[in-house]
């Protein structure tokens, strides 16, 4: 993460967490729960930041997501959802609560360690949604074309490892 981005995130955390913590405490949660829910809310916000057209302030949006996550976690009843106006802007990514299949857990650990540069490049494009121009600049490629070729090489490598893991899971 760029330093400026990291500073911005720390400032957002500093300003918003006390407000979220107060709400979670009023709902009956403890500090650990407030932290976990707030981190999930921030992750969802950061993922959707580019496509969002947030009508309210960022803290109000984060409080809104935290409440939805709270009700989802503890009540599991959609009728209990808070009807804030922010609720319309919020949707939780569909695979957010789906844990990786068991066969992929080992693979995840392997990928985190091996092929580090590849994973960083893939995350920059597929997770942080940087443009190929930005990816090329961040990773020091001479052109977007060479960064693109590298991106597909890395993706193909991960795809092969998944294929291998699928075969192994099928034969054991």
């Amino acid at each position, binding site marked *: *993460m760029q330093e400026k981005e*990291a500073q911005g*995130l*720390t400032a957002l*955390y*500093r300003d918003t*967490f*006390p407000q979220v*913590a*107060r709400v979670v*405490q009023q709902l009956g949660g*403890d*500090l650990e729960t*407030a*932290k976990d829910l707030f*981190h999930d809310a*921030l*992750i969802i916000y*950061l993922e959707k930041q580019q496509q969002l057209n947030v009508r309210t302030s960022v803290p109000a949006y984060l409080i809104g997501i935290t409440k939805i996550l709270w009700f989802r976690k503890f009540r599991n009843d959609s009728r209990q959802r808070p009807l804030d106006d922010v609720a319309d802007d919020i949707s939780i*990514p569909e*695979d*957010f609560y789906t844990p*990786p299949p068991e066969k*992929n857990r080992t*693979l*995840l650990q392997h*990928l*985190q360690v091996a092929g580090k540069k590849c*994973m960083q490049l*893939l*995350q920059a494009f*597929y*997770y*942080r949604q940087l443009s190929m121009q930005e990816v090329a600049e961040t990773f020091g490629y001479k052109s977007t074309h060479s960064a693109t*070729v590298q991106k*597909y*090489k890395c*993706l*193909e490598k*991960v*795809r*092969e490892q*998944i*294929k291998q893991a*699928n075969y192994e899971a099928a034969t054991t």
Partner: protein
Amino acid sequence: MRQLLHEVQEIDQYLLRKMPAGDKLVFEARILTDPQLEENANCQQQAHQLIRWLGRAKQRVTLHNIHHQLWQEDAAFKAEITAIFK
């Protein structure tokens, strides 16, 4: 780009919904008749998902570190949070 990477690119365009409607129909028809292509598309979709999981895991570490840092270095922050949960 060599043939294999062309295929990776094509599947990506399909998965990321960047393929023109006409090409999409042709591609879907090819998947139905080509088990190898179908397997590759499935695995590539799983690859996208793994990248997202890893991205989120990394974000959680970053946020945990921010919390830890504020807790250690910002006395007002710590006092404010402690007061809420006392």
